[in-house]
């Protein structure tokens, strides 16, 4: 896997969210959430990250956390 950090943000609970792209396959988006100590937050999608949607080639670029604490990601 070859990843590039695209954007990051800290939410109200001081958890770190990082948007990356995996360039090694279909440029799929990866959205991580980390705890303050840097470990993966497994309350997020049970793994601490979300790995894209097939079959799109997802050049993700930016994201926000909206007023309802949802993650909104844009991609090409």
């Amino acid at each position, binding site marked *: 896997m070859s990843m590039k950090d695209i954007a990051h943000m800290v939410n109200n609970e001081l958890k770190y969210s990082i948007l990356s792209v995996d360039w090694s396959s279909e440029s799929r988006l990866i959205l991580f959430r980390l705890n303050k100590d840097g470990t993966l937050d497994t309350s997020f*999608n049970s793994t601490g990250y979300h790995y894209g*949607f097939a079959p799109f080639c997802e050049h993700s*670029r*930016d*994201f926000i956390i*909206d007023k309802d604490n949802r*993650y909104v990601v844009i*991609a090409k």
Partner: protein
Amino acid sequence: MILYRFNMDGSPDLSFGSAGYITYDLSSGSDEDGSSIDMDGDKYVILGSHGYGTLLKAVMWRINNDGTYDTSFITDGYLLISVLDQDYGTRGRNVKVKDWFYYFNATKLWPPMVNVIGRVTMDSQLDTSIGDSDTPGLIKLSLNHNVNFLEHDGYFEFDQNNNLIGST
């Protein structure tokens, strides 16, 4: 362009589109590339690019919370922005919502290359009270925009005194 929405627990928000995402295609055969997103209330303001090959303009969308185009922003829900009155090679880079304006920067990658900052009112009008004489509404961030400087990227931010800081 694709807009995804995830719940706070990381699961796709299945109330958004059919499976947690919505695709936007402004016309057949064109490319739409979202670059930056910010919020205006509960609406999403997105900046990106739209075009065919070198025919490329910056585009600003305002999307309702349910993912539909906000036609109260502009009839079609999106605003096309060209630089130096040309249709070539302009990519939208960043957007920030602040004080009743949508600030943005865009880069024109086709000669003459130039990086610009502008702002759009909430009813989709480019604010021509700012800008340079040959680019009303757009402030050029260039050392010399008549040559091919490497102005492929750019960024802007507001400092703690609300000064607009741009880079190219």
